[in-house]
């Protein structure tokens, strides 16, 4: 019974959040649709970068979400370690793959944007390099949380790693910036583009909101799945032990 009771709290969370899922889905599609429409049809081309600037509408929100997801992972880790809230571990574990996808998208679209701008697929630009290291941090987190036979133990170890990584992110960012200015004094066209015109800001904002809503949408679904998996494990264990 103790095992079941431990999921009482997550159950309340699920009954509260499950009705939100269709709403979140609808809002996600709405803002992504509007953002794509404005970004692809209404926003002007950049006078320097031409139409390639439209990659910004998928690149910049992905880069923002990469950091946002890592931050929420670290916050979940802190909550899980300090208050031992079972949902925090679930949230951290559910966030990691989504964050890793966003980070990969930021890297891939950055590379696709860089090819026409820089002439090569990859430049050791400070932003892209930091993103690459962030991607490794995500991979490490996921590898660690899946490396234990007991998933709760994995969640705890991964939470400590997420906190250590989170403290390190500014240090890594700082050292990569330092290293970058050392080796590339004259900067090429920056990734955030030249001064952003208001007609570019709206689609960017809508895409960012859409990405955030998408994250919340998938987060609830993944948390639901993980809590259910916990219940399955508890039931099976109880059956084995009578």
């Amino acid at each position, binding site marked *: *019974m103790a095992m*079941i009771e431990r999921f009482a709290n997550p*159950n309340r969370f699920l009954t509260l959040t499950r009705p939100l899922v269709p709403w979140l889905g609808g809002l996600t599609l709405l803002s992504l649709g509007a953002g*794509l429409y404005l970004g*692809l*049809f209404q926003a002007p*081309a950049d006078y320097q970068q*031409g*139409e*390639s600037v*439209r*990659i910004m509408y*998928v*690149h910049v929100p*992905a880069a923002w979400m990469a950091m946002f997801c890592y931050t929420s992972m670290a916050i979940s880790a802190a909550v899980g370690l300090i208050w031992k809230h079972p949902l925090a571990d679930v949230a951290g574990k559910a966030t990691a*793959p*989504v964050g890793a*996808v966003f980070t*990969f*998208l930021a890297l*891939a*679209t950055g590379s*696709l*944007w860089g*090819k*026409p701008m820089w002439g090569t697929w990859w430049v050791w630009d400070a932003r892209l390099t930091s993103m690459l290291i962030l991607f490794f941090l995500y991979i490490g987190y996921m590898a660690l949380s899946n490396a234990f036979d007991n998933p709760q133990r994995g969640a705890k170890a991964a939470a400590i790693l997420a906190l250590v990584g989170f403290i390190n992110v500014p240090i890594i960012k700082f050292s990569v910036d330092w290293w970058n200015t050392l080796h590339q004094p004259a900067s090429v066209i920056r990734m955030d583009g030249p001064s952003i015109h208001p007609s570019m800001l709206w689609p960017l904002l809508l895409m960012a909101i859409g990405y955030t809503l*998408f994250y919340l*949408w*998938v987060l609830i*679904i*993944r948390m*639901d*799945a993980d809590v*259910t*998996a916990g*219940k*399955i494990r508890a*039931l*099976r264990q109880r*059956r084995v032990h009578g």
Partner: protein
Amino acid sequence: MNTISSFLDMGGYAAFVWPSFGLSAVLLIGIFVISVRTLKANHATLDALNNEAERASPSEGPAQGET
């Protein structure tokens, strides 16, 4: 017709713009589909386990059946 093809051409940057949008769409839809599938599979497994338990011992059933 001309406007459509010039739109698709993206000022000569089509080879970079469309893969960016396409890859983003594929990966985001991909992780969404995987998450929903896992959720559905887990719910099905849990329901099956609960049904089994109920059949095995009807008196204990409802306590486990709560979801």
